[in-house]
């Protein structure tokens, strides 16, 4: 990332989200003490924006995706300045739900929203956001829901599959107050109108922005994409998310949501043909978008119908150009719906890529086998299967027996089975 003001990417300024003053400095390290030159933000040094927290691993500023289970899988949350790409499921049911959770989280935290869509009016999208679970009287219903889920048969099964009982729970059960990081949402209720009106949002609806009689000159980027990029750039500049308007009183995060990017409604024929005229349009768009995001306090979620993209190489390019890629595969209409293995779940979730931001390694979880289900109120992500337990600490049989068998087998192959304690020469 450039040395110019970035959003918490500097290791030296971990915890302080703002680095606007560093344009004039030579280095990107900042003193934590009071500034000699009095700038306008004479408030506390560690400026914290609502709804963000620094990562425990590298100090990166994180925001919640709206789903605490997904936050856990992504290493605590979504880093500010990155792109979350969701590969849509076939009928676009669950990916639009994740999209809405992201936007609802923005409203609850007071972030500014930018919603871009080519098939739905952004105002309609905002009307359909799920309601947050904020009160304590919801906790009772929550506990009931969890209780009803545990049936007596499951206790019997746990006698044999006892290792699953020892697993830590994937998500924290219980609603949280509005000051915490991740929130839970009720997918069956709509967000209250007051919350939408109190929030600040900008909408980009493609059919309104381009008129159909306009003669489109051929260029490398599709016309719709150019318009969207210009719109995003204007909003970032005017509202000061990139630190360009220092008179702004309070730093805030811009949450950008782009729906169905790459579908023919955006004017992109990547879903229609393999080698079309605008085959590089989408990749260029992602490249420019990432540049805009890295230099501003914003986060972007994009849903893309990758199952329609004809040229598979393009999907690999798109994955490389995004930071976090999550694929959803729902069981509706496929033969897996009737498979008893998957009967408790509505689909599989694949974490295809996690970024390495200012790191050499990325924070991969060891579990790759994940399924999701949408209960009445909760969207939960769970492990499907446990891998076999091959660690040394598991006592499969007592160590004495192992040592005996080691002696019998002979020193050649027995040494491995014995473990370090039983190596005797």
């Amino acid at each position, binding site marked *: 990332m450039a040395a110019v003001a970035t959003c918490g990417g500097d290791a030296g300024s971990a915890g302080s989200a703002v680095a606007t003053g560093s344009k004039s400095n030579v280095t990107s390290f900042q003193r934590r003490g009071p500034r000699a030159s009095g700038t306008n933000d004479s408030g506390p040094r560690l400026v914290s924006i609502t709804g963000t927290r620094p990562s425990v691993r590298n100090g990166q500023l994180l925001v919640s995706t709206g789903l605490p289970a997904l936050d856990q899988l992504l290493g605590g949350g979504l880093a500010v300045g990155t792109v979350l790409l969701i590969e849509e499921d076939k009928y676009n049911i669950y990916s639009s739900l994740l999209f809405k959770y992201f936007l609802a989280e923005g409203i609850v935290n007071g972030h500014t929203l930018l919603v871009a869509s080519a098939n739905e009016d952004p105002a309609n999208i905002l009307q359909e956001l799920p309601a947050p679970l904020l009160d304590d009287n919801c906790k009772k219903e929550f506990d009931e829901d969890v209780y009803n889920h545990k049936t007596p048969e499951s206790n019997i099964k746990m006698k044999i599959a006892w290792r699953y009982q020892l697993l830590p729970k994937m998500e924290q059960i219980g609603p949280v107050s509005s000051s915490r990081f991740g929130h839970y949402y009720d997918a069956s209720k709509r967000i209250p109108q007051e919350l939408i009106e109190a929030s600040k949002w900008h909408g980009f609806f493609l059919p309104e922005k381009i008129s159909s009689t306009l003669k489109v000159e051929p260029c490398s980027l599709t016309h719709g994409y150019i318009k969207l990029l210009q719109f995003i750039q204007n909003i970032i500049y005017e509202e000061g998310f990139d630190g360009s308007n220092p008179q702004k009183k309070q730093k805030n995060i811009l949450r950008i949501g782009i729906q169905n990017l790459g579908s023919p*409604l955006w*004017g992109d024929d990547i879903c229609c043909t393999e080698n079309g005229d605008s085959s590089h349009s989408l990749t260029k768009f992602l490249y420019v978008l990432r540049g805009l995001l890295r230099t501003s306090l914003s986060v972007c979620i994009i849903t893309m119908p990758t199952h329609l993209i004809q040229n598979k190489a393009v999907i690999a390019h798109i994955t490389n150009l995004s930071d976090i890629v999550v694929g959803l595969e729902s069981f509706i209409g496929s033969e897996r719906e009737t498979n008893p293995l998957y009967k408790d779940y509505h689909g599989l979730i694949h974490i295809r890529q996690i970024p390495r931001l200012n790191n050499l390694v990325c924070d991969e979880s060891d579990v790759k086998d994940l399924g999701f289900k949408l209960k009445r109120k909760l969207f939960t992500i769970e492990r499907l299967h446990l891998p076999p337990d091959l660690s040394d600490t598991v006592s499969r049989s007592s160590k004495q027996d192992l040592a005996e068998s080691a002696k019998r087998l002979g020193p050649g192959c027995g040494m491995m089975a014995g473990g370090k304690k039983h190596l005797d020469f």
Partner: protein
Amino acid sequence: MLDSLLALGGLVLLRDSVEWEGRSLLKALVKKSALCGEQVHILGCEVSEEEFREGFDSDINNRLVYHDFFRDPLNWSKTGEALPGGPLGALRAMCNRTDLGPVTIALDSLSWLLLHLPCTTLCQTLHTVSHQDSCPPGDGSPVGKVHVLGLLHEELHGPGPMGALSSLAQTEVTLGGIMGQASARILCRRPRQRPTDQTQWFSILPDFSLDLQEGPSIESQPHSDPHIPPVDPTAHLTFNLHLSKKEREARDNLTLPFQFSSEKQEALLRPRPSQATSHIFYEPDAYDDLDQEDPDDDLDI
């Protein structure tokens, strides 16, 4: 289900093939809309107007507004009758309509349009046309539903355009059948709900009305021979696979080796009683080496 196809609005794709043609179904749906009193526009690109109107009686024919792009698609004769802009212009003109009743637009055929127009432009125009009812005009008066029926020959197109149009469509009807009996597989995508998938057997009568049917007769389908009973694999075994009730109880009462129950904990913590059962009696042999580290037995320890 087939007769309530038009209730939802939006784009309805009729996918047909060489064996099961869809134009008669299209005409049946057009006739139904016309009888309901809706305004019907037809974009005829594949067959001539006379051929399309054949079979309809005169009052239905009077209600159809036919835009003919078959005879002169590129407007070479320059008579000024054809709408400017070709079929795309006609579709766009329907986007900005002023009257507000329900309207049905039949595209005969969507395949023709897909082959002559860029796919993205067609998708965008279809989306605008079929979603007019969700964007009401400024005065707030309710707009009637728009139904767009598109006939698509699925063998003519690759998976790309088919996938793109399917994702755009609210309802997709795939025609098929068995032995002369036509069926329609209807996939209905409602915006926020699970898609529903149903199969309906039907036939089209000569006057283009729909006749819904139950399905092909049972006798015509070959059945497995009923005289062979299903084989029970658990019979005639040399070992016992079934548990009696007592055995089942005994099995349930077993504690598994990895379960750390309270009895096990107590058994481990309690000081071990004298082992009546696990004593080892050993008499050292003459040649037995009591101290293995002292081979000569001369260390005085």
